[in-house]
């Protein structure tokens, strides 16, 4: 399974120091706080860890009926500038993060060797970001699986807040995740 999360850094103003410490206290474990505060750019690192947690949470919420908001239960372990793990009572998830001056994007997967596609796009104000991500994702699926003679009709339906892929009435095994924040919309597809 796969989870994606994007944070548009231009959508958040920089926290005042006192507020930032309180945010860390509410959302991060002791180890995470040490990592963030020991970095050269604490607030920027915070958003990386946050996207790692959120992307892993999306996997957890697909397979477990969790009815709680508990970011500290998803503890990040940073391996290097782009790789890491998110450990939780619901399992450990391999995570890859992508940095841009304006966003952080993280993709977590339940299987480290999972092969996936992803795309991040800028969404203009008039567009519905969720619809834009779905259309972009469906276009990618058609491109990958359909030939000119054999057009496969894929559809994305939501069960609660979780998007699922269908081909006709049958649910496809391909797992997907969608995220949008600020001007960015992103999707990830995992081919099982």
């Amino acid at each position: 399974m796969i989870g994606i999360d994007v944070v548009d850094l231009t959508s958040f103003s920089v926290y005042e120091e006192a507020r930032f410490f309180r945010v860390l206290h509410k959302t991060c474990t002791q180890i995470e706080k040490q990592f963030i505060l020991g970095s050269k750019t604490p607030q920027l690192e915070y958003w990386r860890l946050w996207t790692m947690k959120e992307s892993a949470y999306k996997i957890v919420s697909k397979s477990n009926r969790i009815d709680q908001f508990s970011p500290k239960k998803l503890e990040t372990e940073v391996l290097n500038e782009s790789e890491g793990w998110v450990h939780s009572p619901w399992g450990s998830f391999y995570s890859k993060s992508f940095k841009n001056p304006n966003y952080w994007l993280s993709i977590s997967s339940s299987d480290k060797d999972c092969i996936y596609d992803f795309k991040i796009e800028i969404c203009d104000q008039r567009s519905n970001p969720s619809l834009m991500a779905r259309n972009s994702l469906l276009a990618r699926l058609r491109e990958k699986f359909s030939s000119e003679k054999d057009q496969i009709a894929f559809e994305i339906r939501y069960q609660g807040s979780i998007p699922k892929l269908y081909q006709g009435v049958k649910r496809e095994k391909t797992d997907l995740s969608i995220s949008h924040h600020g001007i960015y919309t992103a999707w990830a597809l995992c081919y099982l």
Partner: protein
Amino acid sequence: MDKNEIKEKLKSIISPYVPQKELLETITEETELMKDLKINSQHLVDIILDAEDVFDIEIDDDSAEKMLTVGAAIEIVEKLIHSK
């Protein structure tokens, strides 16, 4: 502070973080902050911090993780105010 006063103050705290303001018009105690009001999870942290400031309370992790509906938030704040 009675329940209605807490509810009104909480609505004011929540309001800036709701992306579609029309969603606030149909708020009930069953309304879910993330699913119904489309509040993102980071702003849920902001709401918890703002509630601590406004009500002069400290919301611990166990309470914070249950603050998913308007009703649950009212109940938690009410309990913490009365236990001061």
